[in-house]
């Protein structure tokens, strides 16, 4: 089938939109709400205009993202009228958009700013005439919802529903008051939101952002009374480089260590060490549940968005969730007990700063279960985005740093098992390596547990635990929409699995809600980041958690053995049912309706 764009003939397949045909042929049409990775085209921004003449000679201004190309159509994407209307459209979008670009988290990396450039925006004449009626919600630890920056592209709603199955986000208000809301809940913190942050990855502007806590960190650094302990997650080392122009997946561990020291960090440790501890504890927990007839399948608990999901959406699954704390929480707890004791620093002087790919980790740090006498084990959590900002604020270009080694003798050694915690399947693989060794008193042949690797949203495998120990069925899921099904299955008692790894974000931590934002794309570097982690694992001298010498020392000197009383106190936690069914009177609901006709 054939149609013309700007006077040139192109062929197309039935069902293709004008935008698809244009893009395929290198013809640029500006867009805003459209989001190809989720096939999301709500048609709300109305920017992708073109003059379209059908075969009957009828010309109309159309949005190209959702208009199917038809035989004989003539499309003009660059007439003066098209350009005028696109410019006015962008002006109308800016009309009720927060004008304070310099104070925005997306400054310089904003799809709306790009749009202004595309259409040649010269003035902003309507802004003073607009009321400001939309909420700014900073009730969450992990994120901020600033609706004065919302362009109503509805990408966040789509990702929350389609990818995560959470559906916390709603569209509220009408007219200039229209914005993204949180359903019947009074605030996002008390809503169904689990703070996974995937919405912040698709938001084209700064309307949905991580809560920036850099100044708290700078305050600690500036305070001579305080010892700052920085710890960074496995995935951070293969993600952060992108923010400084380095290749996706490149291991920048050494550069981060150096940059943190340049920044003024007193102690730099590795969250990977804590990941090895988690394997020791969770692996023992699994074996004990199998042996003692405990609740199975056992779900992993490293992912705070998953834990939030279980507590808020599926509380019946909580008894199946491992009580082992996450690596961040383990690191925080051990810093203020073990490290403080070993290094002779009073724990009240220590501030733990956790560097994470994740918005929900901020929320995790605030959990009362992870406080001792009212003091948090982890004091501040920075996402990758904040960390890159923190470096830039201090004139540090990561790309120019000379790599340095960890030097903390207590909590910085790690293994290949720990580093793959950052990808889907990694926790499972790490656990299998250690569980096998514990049961068989020898290492798993070949180390790699290939069947649990992969990118599918839900994978299952049979793992042979060695002679006499049988075969267990395990599952790995990422993306909560997938996890929900397995959780329901477990609760119903029909789960065929013994051990299930859940990571809320599709791809795992490497694609976490706190990682770099990429315009108009969704997890474009997932593969490189994951391969980066596996490459690190492959090259590590030790690839099983139980072989980490600092781990062996930790248990010998401090904890005793996995699942010991002390380990339980410091390294395990509990969960609470936070699900709630919001009810409302019919009369109150009716008062909320925006209906202009009330008569029958």
């Amino acid at each position, binding site marked *: 089938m054939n149609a013309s764009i700007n006077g040139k003939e192109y062929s197309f397949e039935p069902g293709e939109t004008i935008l698809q045909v244009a893009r395929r042929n290198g013809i640029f049409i500006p867009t805003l709400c459209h989001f190809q990775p989720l096939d999301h085209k709500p048609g709300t921004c109305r920017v992708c205009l073109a003059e*379209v003449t059908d075969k009957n000679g009828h010309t109309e201004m159309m949005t190209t993202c959702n208009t199917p190309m038809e035989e004989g159509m003539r499309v003009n994407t660059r007439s003066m009228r098209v350009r005028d*209307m696109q410019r006015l459209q962008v002006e109308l979008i800016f009309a009720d958009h927060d004008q304070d670009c310099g104070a925005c988290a997306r400054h310089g990396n904003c799809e709306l700013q790009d749009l202004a450039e595309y259409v040649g925006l010269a003035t902003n004449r309507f802004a003073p005439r607009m009321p400001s009626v939309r909420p700014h919600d900073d009730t969450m630890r992990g994120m901020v919802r600033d609706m004065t920056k919302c362009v109503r592209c509805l990408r966040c709603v789509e990702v929350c529903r389609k990818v995560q199955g959470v559906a916390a986000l709603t569209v509220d208000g009408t007219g200039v008051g229209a914005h993204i809301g949180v359903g019947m809940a009074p605030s996002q913190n008390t809503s169904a939101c689990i703070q996974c942050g995937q919405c912040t990855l698709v938001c084209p502007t700064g309307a949905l952002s991580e809560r920036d806590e850099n100044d708290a960190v700078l305050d600690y650094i500036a305070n001579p009374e305080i010892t700052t302990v920085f710890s960074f997650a496995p995935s951070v080392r293969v993600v952060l480089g992108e923010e400084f122009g380095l290749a996706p997946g490149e291991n920048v561990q050494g550069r981060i260590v150096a940059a943190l020291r340049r920044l003024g960090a007193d102690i730099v440790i590795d969250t990977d060490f804590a990941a090895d501890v988690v394997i020791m504890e969770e692996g023992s927990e699994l074996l004990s549940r199998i042996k003692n007839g405990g609740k199975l399948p056992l779900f992993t608990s490293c992912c705070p968005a998953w834990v939030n999901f279980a507590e808020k959406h599926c509380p019946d699954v909580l008894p199946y969730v491992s009580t082992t704390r996450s690596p961040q929480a383990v690191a925080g707890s051990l810093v203020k007990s073990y490290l403080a004791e070993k290094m002779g620093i009073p724990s009240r002087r220590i501030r733990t700063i956790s560097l994470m790919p994740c918005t929900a980790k901020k929320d995790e740090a605030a959990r009362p279960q992870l406080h001792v006498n009212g003091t948090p084990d982890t004091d501040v959590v920075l996402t990758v985005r904040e960390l890159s900002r923190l470096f830039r604020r201090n004139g540090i270009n990561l790309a120019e740093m000379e790599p340095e080694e960890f030097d903390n003798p207590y909590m910085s050694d790690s293994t290949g098992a720990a580093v793959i915690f950052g990808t889907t399947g990694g926790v499972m693989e790490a656990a299998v390596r250690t569980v096998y060794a514990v049961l068989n008193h020898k290492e798993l042949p070949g180390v790699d547990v290939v069947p649990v690797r992969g990118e599918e949203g839900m994978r299952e495998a049979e793992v042979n635990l060695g002679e006499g120990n049988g075969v267990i069925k395990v599952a790995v899921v990422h993306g909560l929409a997938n996890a929900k099904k397995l959780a329901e299955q477990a609760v119903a008692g029909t789960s065929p699995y013994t051990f299930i790894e859940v990571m809320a974000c599709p791809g795992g931590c490497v694609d976490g809600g706190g990682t770099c934002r990429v315009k108009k794309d969704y997890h474009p570097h997932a593969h490189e980041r994951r391969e980066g982690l596996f490459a690190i694992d492959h090259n590590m001298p030790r690839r099983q958690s139980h072989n980490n010498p600092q781990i062996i020392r930790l248990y010998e000197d401090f904890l005793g053995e996995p699942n010991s009383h002390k380990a339980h106190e410091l390294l395990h936690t509990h969960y609470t049912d936070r699900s709630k069914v919001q009810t409302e009177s019919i009369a109150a609901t009716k008062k909320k309706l925006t209906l202009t006709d009330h008569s029958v």
Partner: protein
Amino acid sequence: MPQLIYGVWDNVVYDNRGSATPTSPKDLPLELFDQFNEGNPMEIFLSNRGFLVFSRTASLAWALWKHHERLAAESCGKCSPCRAGSHILAQELEKACHGGEVNWEEVRDITEQMHETSLCGVGRTGTTPLLDAISHFPDELRPFPFHGNAGFYSVTTSPCIEACPSHVNVPRYIDYLQDGHNDLAAGVVLNHYPLAGSCGRVCVRYCEKACRRAQVDAPVDIKNLKRFAADKTIVPGILKPEPCPTTKNKRVAVIGAGPVGVTCAYQLLETGYPVDIYEAHDKAGGMVRYGIPFYRLPKNVLLQENELVKQMGGMFFFKQKLGRDFHIDDLFDRGYKAVFIATGCPLGGYLGMKGEDTSLPGYENGIDFLEKVHDVLETGVTPSMEGDVVVVGGGNVAMDCCRSAVRMTRGKVHLVYRRTEADAPADREEIVEAMREGVEFHFLSGQDSLVVENGKITGLRCVAMQQTEPDESGRRGVTPIPGSEFVIPCDHVIAAIGQKSDPAMLTEKDGIALDRKNCIVVDEYQATSRPGVFAGGDGTTGPRTKGPSVLIHGMAQGSIGAQAIVSYLEYGRPPFLARERISQLIRQADLLGDDPVCGQEKKARVKLNELAPAERAGNFKEVELGMSQEEAWQEAKRCMRCYRIMSVVTRAPIPGFKA
């Protein structure tokens, strides 16, 4: 007859300001634009088609300002041009009316932008009058010395809303579903009647027949979206009723706790009136309860909806039958100031064949049959019957009977109908499902007589029919083919050919006029011939009577009745129903037309899960399984929001509406 002074209609300019030979739109009967309410002429009319000015003293600028205030309030705020544009235009027009400086070029640009690039009908068609005015009558947009006592009424409608007798704002609740507010979606429906989940299952769906999406692929599944909203909120108790504060002291009695009476009571309770409901049966629900089988409507849904009315403060008095336990006079003696009768047509008819004995075992009417089936099911037992069954009739009751019978007998179930399949008044889906469930249809077959042996039915003698030539109305009758008699062997014959009201309920003493068929005669306000007594639903006859047993019509009548009762009790006169008035205008002047849909991507209608025919035998489990949340979002996205805004400026204020 109003004179058109000037205006633009369907892009044609009419300017009679200095013309001796006035012109007006050809197919538009101007007399329809005479008075809006009694004695109050329409001066300006604005719609998606353009605008018409009938008065030399009316201000077009003011009309446009008010119209655009409405548009701004209607803008959902999702698409860029309408969100900001509607707000700016309302501001600028207000300025224009108050003599402020207006940049008309900018206004024109924004209006065009909204008109050509908005996402839905609000921005695209709501701006037509302003664009026409700027283009052709810019001088009329100047500030106007204005008498300031005009009336204004505006409505936002769409083909689906107009098609619905209750004018439920369909796109609004679909939008709420898409937006993630199942509660508010249900709230939109609850604004009209409490039976949201029931209507979401059994509605005849005039809205879907009017849906413009059919031009692209298939109508939006409006009925099931409504059901979804109700099932997610009312059924699980997310939305809870609460007692309505009683603010009025005049008590109202409603007779009949079917959908019509319950809807009337619901509306009255919300207005603050104390309402008592008298019901002949021992439970509420009326014909919806026992006439619609469980496989179409599980009764917990209906019970919960009736419970809403109870929780709101409605007092139910069961086993109280009009004409047996009380009369209309008794109600007034008990202190009620108004009465609403909604007793329906509770009696089934027999076939009236030669030598017919209605007491013969195995011979019964459809209504009695369905009620019997219902009563057994309600005790938790699945009823059964032995042998073959013949159901006679072509309406929904006939389908309910034969579809119930296939679930109860191992024998054959036949349906006999005198006309063709296409003539059958039953819903198409009902006929299809009955066929899928194994009912054998005999179209163009008339019943002749029962075949009885030893006091027992052994068959139904039928005669083949043929169609006659079309009469003047184009309808083809049927006539028996001589000598074509045949017998369908059977053990049961169920007559499902119509229902009638119970003549024992009202007597002459009640002072209420009835027609030949014992139906209560009502006017357009559902008022009977007796002051203070109103009636609605099956068993009444009036301008709003539209065929029997259409739930949504009945509930609309219950609503109108409630408004009429309020007006009667407050002011002693009939109400002015502005919404109904504008609907009448839209209908008579064909204002919504049928403009073509273009440029839409195809999106298939969600295919719903159902109980397979093989799984239906021997039980009354619900057949249609409803939508999942994901399906509801997907289906909701198909709505194109074909909103059209219509505004009327009248010479004097309109009762009940502030300008």
